[in-house]
């Protein structure tokens, strides 16, 4: 029983990280039809700068931890917005080129991060409480899991509230459904492109800081390794669906954790099988609108 609880909560924590990456990917693809391969770089940069700032303040203090999350989200948002404005926008409606630019950016930034911080992982510390465990039904759960889950849940709620209750949120939802019709109502839909990049970048940067605590280190490849699973989550959840991304994040991470434990480390393989199954049975994903 305690093993199941440990696997479930660890899986939820991992799912929370997937969601923070996949939410932006899904919204960006849904609205702009761009698969953003540079999304992992927003995460990695958020993680590194968050770690640096926390280190300056005091990595073991709650203040340092809180500020690192803010910095991670802010730098993710800023870099994502600049990426959209400087690289994606000039290639308006040229989707292949847009995707290639993001691929190039992801390769270049990983090399850049390696140049600055080296390619070896840097092990990080946080407030002592995060390294302790809490007992639930006999399982000893690392406390950082709870923080990751709570922050991701808060991010989900914040993005949902934004989408439901603001005019820009409404434009994004409408644009995911039918972008041409949004412009035919007199709305400059490109403004919302920058916005979804900014939102997605903030979530990814925040995810970077949390991922570095979840795994205990930062490295230039941190974003890339999470991005692969976030892509799978995005496809399974349905491109463009935020709740789909949330549900699929949890499903994929749980499946991965349990398969890794009970099926002798086949978690990644099982995820790919699940992806294939979803693509065969329901190509638009669990909550995707249409092909």
């Amino acid at each position: 029983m305690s093993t199941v609880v440990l696997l479930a909560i660890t899986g939820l924590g991992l799912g929370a990280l997937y969601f923070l990456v996949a939410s932006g990917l899904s919204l960006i693809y849904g609205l702009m039809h761009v698969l953003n391969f540079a999304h992992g770089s927003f995460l990695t940069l958020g993680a590194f700068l968050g770690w640096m700032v926390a280190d300056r303040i005091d990595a073991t203090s709650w203040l340092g931890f809180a500020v690192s999350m803010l910095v991670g989200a802010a730098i993710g948002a800023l870099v994502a917005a600049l990426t959209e404005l400087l690289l994606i926008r000039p290639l308006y409606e040229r989707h292949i080129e847009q995707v290639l630019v993001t691929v190039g950016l992801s390769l270049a930034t990983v090399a850049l991060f390696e140049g600055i911080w080296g390619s070896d992982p840097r092990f990080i510390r946080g407030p002592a409480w995060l390294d302790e465990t809490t007992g639930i039904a006999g399982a000893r759960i690392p406390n950082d899991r709870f923080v990751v889950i709570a922050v991701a849940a808060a991010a989900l709620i914040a993005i949902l509230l934004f989408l439901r209750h603001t005019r820009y949120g409404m434009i994004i939802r409408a644009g995911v459904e039918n972008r041409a019709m949004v412009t035919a109502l007199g709305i400059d839909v490109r403004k919302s492109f920058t916005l979804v990049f900014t939102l997605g970048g903030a979530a990814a940067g925040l995810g970077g800081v949390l991922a570095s605590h979840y795994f205990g280190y930062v490295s230039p490849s941190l974003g890339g390794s999470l991005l692969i699973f976030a892509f799978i989550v995005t496809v399974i959840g349905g491109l463009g669906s935020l709740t789909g991304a949330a549900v699929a994040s949890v499903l994929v991470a749980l499946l991965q954790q349990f398969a890794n434990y009970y099926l002798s480390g086949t978690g990644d393989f099982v995820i790919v099988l699940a992806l294939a199954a979803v693509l065969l049975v329901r190509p638009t994903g669990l909550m995707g609108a249409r092909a």
Partner: protein
Amino acid sequence: MSTTPTNGSEPVLVVEHLAAEIDGQQVVEDVSLTVPSRGITAVLGRNGVGKTSTLRGILGLIRRTGSVTLAGERIEKLPTYKIVQRGVGYVPEDREVFAKLTVAENLRLAERTSAPRRELVDALFPDLVARRDQMAGTLSGGQQQMLSLGRALINENVLLVVDEPTKGLAPRIVNEVADALIEAAKTVPILLVEQNLEVVRRLAGDVVVIESGRVVHTGDAVALLDDDDLTTRLLGVHADTDSDTDTTTEVAR
């Protein structure tokens, strides 16, 4: 009520030598037409001759060449949203309401000014008022058409561009839509694509007939529809019979 005071004789829209393509395929060859500042101008023609593409070309929703002048200003170089901001209400073929937005959200999204005409839309389409919080995707075909019209009428416009508003609707709803268009036309000129010739007879002043992406006839609507030979030759149908069966499939749920 019109936002720009026209002196009544200036046409609101002048299209000259419009050509348009979709994915490299020429769908409009050479269309020139004029929409007067009053009344309803109907674009007619058989299926697939480029009527919808003409409207989409005017709005910049597809790649086009030629000149388009709206209320005296050249707009053919402008992106769609800027054309619409100059006072065009667009009611597309197949309604294109946002299925996952509520009725109220669909209308709010369309509001371009701080003084939207909500009372007018509510008065025209009382059905929508009761369904404000319903997802637009769950509305019947007729209600979706009302919503699509409501989105165009919520702003004061200099021109409405309306594409096959009665397509696929039950006869009773067709009449309601026609009534709404007549009401709207009292304050704003309308460029209308319509297959139902009875509706055209009720609504239209001028007609423009398109064949293979070119204008082949312009003139008075009733004069055309009264001329059996001409109607048969241009539209392939008899004006008095309900022969446009391919467009009357009920899609209402």
